[in-house]
């Protein structure tokens, strides 16, 4: 999983590329650590090239959502592939994370 983060004017534009699975979930958490910080602001995440996430990845998205909510910012995940979206749907994550 490649995570590209561009921060400017109190916003973070993020592009995800690849898979989040058992082999790299810890690395992914490390990569998104800057987004956990208050100065990351609102987060706009392009998920069009995210191919897969296991429950490990879902945990990270929930942790990120909690961090963003607690600082009163917004997290939006965009252009998610249907198969990945289904994982967010059946776990109820589509109700707690904004997916557009």
């Amino acid at each position: 999983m490649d995570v590209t983060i561009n921060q400017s004017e109190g916003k973070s534009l993020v592009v995800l590329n690849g898979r989040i699975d058992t082999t790299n979930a810890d690395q992914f958490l490390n990569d998104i650590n800057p987004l956990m910080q208050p100065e990351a602001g609102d987060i706009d995440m392009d998920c069009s090239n995210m191919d897969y996430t296991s429950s490990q990845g879902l945990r990270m998205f929930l942790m990120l959502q909690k961090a963003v909510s607690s600082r009163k910012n917004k997290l939006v995940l965009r252009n998610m592939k249907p198969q990945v979206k289904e994982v967010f749907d059946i776990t109820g994550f589509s109700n707690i994370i904004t997916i557009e």
Partner: protein
Amino acid sequence: MKKLFDPIKDKSSEIIEWLMASPDMPSDDGLLFKIRLSIEEAVENVVRYAYETGNGWMEVSTDLNHDTFELTIELRDAGTPFNPLDRPDPDITLAAEDRPIGGLGIFLCKQLMDDIAYRYENGCNILTMKKNINID
């Protein structure tokens, strides 16, 4: 097809890839996605939690019924007796602030496979997952 992995510590990927390479697997990408995710969650559970020392064995198998197109995946270990299906399903209606982190792995298996069953037999945990792979 059946294979014994011993020891299994840090071998999740190897076990998952062996199962996914089975000739019993379907070719449909959507089905493969669901099966891989279910296998990953189930295998991870055993590798991480079954053995207190982290070291032990796991036997995995795939079987395809060519009449019904039902794929069966079985995981067997001799770790601490544990029925993962006993765990209550997460409340997926809770707000983000109230959702606990975790507890989603086996829930995903239940949702993505057609059937999942656990039994304890001869000192072994046996988890069986079934999926109909006939896409017609």
